């Protein structure tokens, strides 16, 4: 390169830097995700504006001195962005906030199945998001509702903190599929919780002679809330006489358990299910 050309090149570069140094941006401090916004540039000539964050990157060639319009939907991931012009030392920051409208509720409910009448046995946790999958961190009220067909619903309102909220609720006294609903900002999400009868409660049996044996039969077996204990639940009959013991396990069938055992005068007969004991009968001599 000739000395003259080199001098011209240096002069041009110097002029460009001077222009760039004189240019600048006026940037909004914060915008809502997905909304249209404008950046005002100063200076003259051509430049390139950059908006850079871990969440998103934009680059646009601009005429300096003009207003740069970013249409709705161009910057939609919530986060903290650097905004700057090529060749300019000035850098601005722009915070993109989650959109105001809730679009999605992530709802984790546990367990999927549990016994009735369990205190704080059902838990739910929610995270709330806008339509761009940004976590909505401003406080929102989440309405939780747990309802069982034919039973009273439980309702609680919880305010989110940093986009999250949780609740613990009692399973209802009545068996059946409960609807567990989290509702926030017009969006609701439902989970189904199976509520099954609890352990048998107060097992009652009767005895009557049946030839050389004694016929034993339970009354319909129910839990402590009055729900029928499901068929297949094992009922244990035990006969004790003179140190000898006879045990028979019988699954519930149509709500009751039946068995015939040796009719030994003076024998003691008990009934149980797991650790739950029923009544006791002494067979007459």
């Amino acid at each position, binding site marked *: 390169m000739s000395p003259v050309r080199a001098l011209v090149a240096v002069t041009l570069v110097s002029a460009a830097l001077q222009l760039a140094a004189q240019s600048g941006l006026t940037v909004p401090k914060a915008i809502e995700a997905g909304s249209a916004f404008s950046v005002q540039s100063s200076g003259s000539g051509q430049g390139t504006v950059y908006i850079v964050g871990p969440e998103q990157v934009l680059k646009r060639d601009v005429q300096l001195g003009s207003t740069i319009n970013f249409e709705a939907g161009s910057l939609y991931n919530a986060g903290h962005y650097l905004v700057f012009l090529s060749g300019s030392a000035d850098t601005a920051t722009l915070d993109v906030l989650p959109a105001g409208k809730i679009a999605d509720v992530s709802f984790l409910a546990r367990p999927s199945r549990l016994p009735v009448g369990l205190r704080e046995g059902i838990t739910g*946790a929610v995270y709330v998001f806008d339509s761009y999958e940004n976590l909505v961190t401003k406080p929102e009220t989440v309405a939780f509702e747990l309802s069982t067909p034919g039973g009273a619903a439980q309702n609680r309102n919880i305010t989110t903190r940093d986009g*999250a909220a949780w609740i613990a609720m009692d399973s209802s006294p009545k068996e059946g599929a409960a609807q567990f609903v989290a509702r926030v900002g017009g969006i609701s999400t439902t989970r189904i919780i199976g509520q099954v009868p609890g352990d048998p409660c107060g097992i009652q049996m009767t005895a009557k002679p049946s030839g050389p044996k004694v016929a034993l039969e339970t009354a319909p077996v129910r839990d402590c809330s009055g729900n029928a204990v499901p068929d297949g639940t094992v009922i244990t009959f035990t006969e004790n006489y003179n140190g000898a013991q006879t045990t028979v396990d019988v699954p519930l069938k149509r709500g009751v358990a039946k068995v015939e055992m040796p009719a030994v005068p003076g024998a003691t007969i008990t009934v149980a299910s797991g650790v739950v004991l029923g009544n006791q009968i002494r067979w007459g001599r």
Partner: protein
Amino acid sequence: MRYVFAGAAVLCACATVSVAQASVHVQPYHLQGPRPLAEQTANAVVQDYLEAWQTLRGALGQNRVDTLDRDFVGAARDKLAETIQQQTKLGLRTNYQDRSHDIQIVFYSPEGLSIQLIDNVDYDQQVLDHEKVLTTQHVSARYVVVLTPSETRWRVRVLQAVTE
């Protein structure tokens, strides 16, 4: 609930080693939620989160989507992948060098499937266009982070800078 950080020194020392020069402070936690948080779980969450920052740095600095899956999942992974694709298309790279983390675990969901933490993080952000450095800035930001457990580690599901 108080988080007694007899392990704090250990944790911070480990974290300091694993994330180069970044200093790490883990605050005692004040949890929302009924589920107790074991110290071992808390340590694992913080360690995995700090390693996720290393992954973020490498992925955005080298425009490599394939490195994200170990530490990111769901929306966080998708957004970072999208950023990398945008950077690649525009000829950009961004180096994020985290300098300090001030971390507090704030929520452990009752069923144990998510943990939320707040991180006041300081980092340097250097933007390059076709290998030319455009700017290098020091940034302070408050991040809300949600992690969920996977087979072997906690992965970041939400990573979002928020305005206080």
